[in-house]
């Protein structure tokens, strides 16, 4: 349970809110690089942290993320002309460069200095991996760019997709932290999904449906260890890292690619789910890549030309009661990603956490909320830089491993849970 005011604190991310300010300390994914595929591509409307922005790549290849609305009379620049050196408003032709600077006001005389005094809010937009990242905070405090492993391996080793989720970011994140739902909601996926099936870990997973949990704090966030019985004297551990505020990784299975998510607030009732899969030391195979593009594993299929899932709340996620009865899916909804989003959206856009009845297995969630709240308050009250801003905190991996019963998972996995270039993931 959370008090209503704490729920509001954690779920509101607009400008000036404590959690909104927290998010504005980090580089966050704004859009996929594929959305601005070439110089002069059509501009893209992007809402982030309750701010409406326009992303564009000018004719010379510079990326910009600026206020969506023209300074003149508030027209959306989405209708604009993307030219060599900037975006020109469709109404009266004012032109802006990627820094938001107005560089031309056609109605004014040729040598007028008027436009120099007009500047729209703009945020940096940089391509790292397959993602265009932005930083929406104080320029003086801008941190070094992100170092998550999935955006730094060679491009043939990594794949990222994106989907719109019609719920607050926090209930989406909480799904990424809560691994106790996997043996229920996703049970069929462990058997059938091409990107999950056939690992030894799956057998441990399904053989012990009452796992034990351990939650350990680390510099950037948490490591949540879930253990199940393995062979005599051993436990099978699945270790989920959470890097604040919203990066989670799923523990790997066999030689399948490693995957995870970034849960990014669009506004208080919607979020972007950026979903990645990668191999630390080898290229993705053609089959793996095809499976991801087909929406298997943790990916999904979107309506053509959009990032809205084909299975969405308007069609009840294509619920199939027969498949549910036959045991092909636990909830009747196909695909791991939409199994999650369907349930999280069903809670309503912002779930009322004052009505929850949590159990001990929810401890990871309890601890994550406590850390978010503490970080937001420390930032607001004392200007403390939150965990996860330092790119060193990004260099984590999820782990699945069999350890002797008396071993501490956190001490045993220091190396396995850190990024070592050229070293394979630790996975069972």
């Amino acid at each position, binding site marked *: 349970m959370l008090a209503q005011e704490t729920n509001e604190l954690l779920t509101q991310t607009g400008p000036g809110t404590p959690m909104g300010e927290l998010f504005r300390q980090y580089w966050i994914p704004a859009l996929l690089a594929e959305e601005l595929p070439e110089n002069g591509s059509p501009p893209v409307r992007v809402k982030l942290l309750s701010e409406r922005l326009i992303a564009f790549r000018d004719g010379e290849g510079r990326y910009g993320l600026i206020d969506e609305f023209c300074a003149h009379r508030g027209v959306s620049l989405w209708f604009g002309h993307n030219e060599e050196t900037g975006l020109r408003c469709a109404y009266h032709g004012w032109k802006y460069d990627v820094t938001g600077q107005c560089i031309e006001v056609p109605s004014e005389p040729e040598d007028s200095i008027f436009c120099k005094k007009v500047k729209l809010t703009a945020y940096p937009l940089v391509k790292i991996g397959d993602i265009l990242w932005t930083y929406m905070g104080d320029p003086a405090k801008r941190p070094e760019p992100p170092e998550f492993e999935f955006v730094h391996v060679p491009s043939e080793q990594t794949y990222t997709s994106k989907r719109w989720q019609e719920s607050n970011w926090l209930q989406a994140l909480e799904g990424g932290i809560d691994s106790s739902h996997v043996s229920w909601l996703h049970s069929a996926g462990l058997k059938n999904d091409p990107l999950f099936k056939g690992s030894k870990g799956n057998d441990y997973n399904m053989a012990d449906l009452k796992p034990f*949990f351990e939650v350990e704090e680390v510099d950037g966030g948490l490591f949540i260890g879930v253990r199940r019985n393995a062979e005599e004297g051993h436990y099978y551990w699945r270790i989920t890292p959470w890097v604040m505020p919203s990066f989670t990784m799923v523990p790997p299975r066999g030689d399948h690619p490693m995957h995870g998510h970034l849960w990014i607030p669009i506004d208080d009732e919607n979020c972007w789910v950026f979903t990645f899969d990668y191999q630390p030391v080898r290229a993705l195979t053609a089959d793996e890549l095809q499976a991801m593009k087909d929406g298997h594993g943790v990916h999904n299929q979107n309506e053509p030309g959009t990032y809205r899932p084909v299975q969405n709340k308007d069609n009840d996620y294509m619920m199939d009661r027969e498949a549910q009865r036959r045991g092909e899916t636990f909830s009747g909804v196909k695909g791991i990603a939409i199994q999650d989003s369907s349930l999280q959206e069903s809670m309503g856009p912002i779930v009322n956490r004052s009505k929850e009845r949590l159990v001990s297995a929810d401890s990871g969630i309890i601890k994550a*909320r406590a850390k978010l709240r503490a970080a937001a308050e420390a930032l607001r009250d004392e200007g403390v830089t939150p965990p996860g801003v330092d790119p060193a905190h990004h260099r984590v991996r999820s782990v699945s491993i069999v350890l002797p019963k008396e071993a501490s998972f956190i001490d045993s996995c220091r190396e396995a849970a850190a990024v070592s270039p050229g070293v394979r993931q630790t996975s069972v």
Partner: protein
Amino acid sequence: MATTAAEARFRVDAPIRGQRATRVVALDESATAVMRRVAEQTWGGARFYSYEARPHSVETDAELADIVLRTMDGAEARLSEELADADAMVMIATADDGAEAASAIGNACTLRGIMTAGLILGDGREAGAAVMALRPHARVLMRSTGEHDVADVLTALRA
């Protein structure tokens, strides 16, 4: 009908029935000090106890180990009786002094189907030993940084 923002308002607005009966046991002196401060806040059905390791505080001659606890005002209480109507047990430890008690509590809770959690305060070797001592007996183990953290967990569990 999808749970849109407008529809979410129609969620049945009644308190969740059934108070939770949480028992909180501090397994050593430092843990007791933290728990004492937390216990001063207002709680639902939670009751707080401390355990001191001394001869005969764990009775193993009976069929099932029972242990003697102390309530916050110093009265003696038997674990078996205090668990009678409990549904959650939270153990707090800073070291492994209470290992024997943790085992007795863990077994008693397993037998009665009571949910268990362990909060480990501090870091370093002592706390590492506490993790080892509690691991077999708590469904969840969590490192906690202090009073505030302990209170957060109890609040989340509606203690």
